[in-house]
């Protein structure tokens, strides 16, 4: 009961005053090149660790019944142009989806787009958008190994043939990828979800049900799961014209969300921060 009322208090704070929790992330200024994934452990030396509390997404159904990820440890560094986060959270199983009814582990970091008082933490508001960096283990697989084909998902499946898939495609006149894609409706409709993904989706949203993927992506992500813990490096370009625009010395706010595929978490079924976490970018 105590836990519940505390959670409720946090909800109230988050909604009505957008009051930041005391945790503060400080992005340490470093000299290393962060424009690409930097696997050098030493760049994180001295970067402050901040533990951020999450709870089940409580606002819109469908929502989870239990909080699966209670906390995420956050560190941040920047090189003046790129801002990089290191997130750690425990997750007993690695999930990157594929088969029917399977869901991928995922994480997201959210920034308000406008300066000043941030919008409600629940995916922003009309004319007060948020900029979200959404990493999925499934998307990372796309980037590293290519998008899974049916034979990767179901190795033992047998099929006579797919429409427009011939053994000697060169011999068939007028056979184009576009014609093949007519039989994959998501692709034919140009849904980014149906194509091989970059490890991180960049999304703009102005409230629930409004999220839309941005096409030009200036971010990267690399997650590594071992011994029941995900460690995710997520980097983004600091200056984004139409998104959240940051610079050394500035302050902003962060929101976090974590999904555990093993608990069928996807979409609105997730653990989230209930108030903005302030962040300072060192000069």
């Amino acid at each position, binding site marked *: 009961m105590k836990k519940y009322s505390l959670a409720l208090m946090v909800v109230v704070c988050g909604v009505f005053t957008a009051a930041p929790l005391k945790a503060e992330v400080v992005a340490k200024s470093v000299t290393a090149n962060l424009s690409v994934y930097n696997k050098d452990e030493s760049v994180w030396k001295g970067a402050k660790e901040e533990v951020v509390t999450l709870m089940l997404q409580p606002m819109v159904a469908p929502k989870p019944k239990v909080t699966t990820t209670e906390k995420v440890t956050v560190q941040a560094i920047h090189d003046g142009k790129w801002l990089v986060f290191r997130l750690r959270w425990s997750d007993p199983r690695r999930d990157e989806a594929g088969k*029917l009814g399977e869901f991928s582990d995922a994480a997201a970091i959210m920034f308000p787009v406008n300066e000043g008082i941030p919008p409600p933490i629940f995916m922003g508001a009309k004319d007060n958008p948020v900029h979200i960096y959404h990493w999925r283990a499934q998307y990372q697989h796309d980037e590293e190994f290519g998008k899974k084909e049916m034979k990767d998902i179901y190795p033992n499946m047998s099929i006579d043939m797919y429409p427009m898939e011939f053994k000697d495609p060169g011999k068939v006149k007028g056979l184009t990828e576009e014609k093949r894609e007519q039989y994959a*409706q998501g692709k034919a409709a140009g849904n980014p979800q149906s194509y091989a993904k970059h490890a991180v989706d960049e999304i703009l949203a102005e409230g629930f049900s409004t999220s839309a993927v941005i096409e030009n992506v200036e971010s990267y992500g690399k997650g590594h799961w071992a011994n029941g813990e995900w460690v995710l490096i997520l980097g983004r370009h600091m200056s984004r014209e139409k998104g959240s625009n940051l610079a050394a010395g500035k302050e902003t706010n962060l929101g976090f969300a974590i999904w555990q595929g093993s608990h069928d978490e996807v979409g609105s079924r997730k653990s989230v921060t209930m108030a903005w976490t302030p962040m300072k970018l060192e000069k």
Partner: protein
Amino acid sequence: MAVVKNWQLKRDMEYAYEESRPKRQWAIVFDLNKCIACQTCSLACKTTWTSGKGQEYMFWNNVETKPYGSYPLAWDVRVLEKLGKQEWKKNEPYYGKTIFEAADPEEKAVHFAPKDEDWMYPNIGEDDCAGTVVAGDHISLPHDKWFFYLPRTCAHCTYPACLAACPRKAIYKREEDGIVLIDQSRCKGYGECVRACPYKKSMYNTYTRVSEKCVGCYPAVEQGYQPMCVQNCIGKIRIMGFVNPPWKAREDNPVDYLVHKQGIALPYYPQLGLEPNIYYIPPIHADRSYLEQMFGPNVGTAIEKYKKLESDPIAKGLLVLMGSSDRILHRFDVVNGQATGYDEKGDTIVSVPVNEALIERPAFDAANGTIRGNTP
């Protein structure tokens, strides 16, 4: 939650959005006494819509043997079990709970989430009958050992659970014909529709990573043609048309006639609260309590009425019109033993005799100098 009118339950109920009925509502009526589970409908649909990657397992139209067949596995009993025992007395509104009303606060609808293995047996239970046939058994009516075939498409419900559950609002119901579609460019494949639809007619495509469902053959419907599963039904057990709510029902509309005027075509699992728009003429020889669970408390009345259609020339005429044209019949009449179907403008589409003429021919064919055989 909004309060909406559900005529199938004869009461108001809770739903995620306000009541907004389309200009007209796509509907199919199936005569279950005639279905032989040849699966021609399933294949007509499959070759038209789901031959691509990620659609291997999909049957937007399927036919399952009841009581033991189901696809995905046990979809019906699992939803009913989750909903729990509910009462529905004959000639009364349904006072039990719908899947929307019984849902936990975290969910939009009572549901079960099918897993990979649940989609592996499209033919499970096929031709299995309820009860064991032992030596000395003989047929009695209604059959004490029974089964029947249940062909199913999406019901393009008036209150779709898939639409209610989609957090991205990527599912919409068309104003012009009530067909429910998943926006293939907006869906993100969360699978909430797959979980929420009690009939399990939303399906996830593992290749495109978005969900798909029966599209009601809308390109054909827009041209005045019935869906492929209806056009290709060799048993002529189906008719697709537009159903009105009872307060707007027209006796000369084929679907309204069967659903409202005669009351012999019933929605399936109406108690779930979706106001589904596929209607069934129940099988007359199957177990009555099972049929009541599936079609509601009026199933007995519908069966008794159906048995007497022989003496009703208009009803007989309409049953003959079923399957006699690929086009959508907006209106029909039966005059002087001739049943006629009309299009939206009122032009004749098809006209057939209610009783085929019986022609007797002599056994010896003098013109060809041969004896006529009985074998075709």
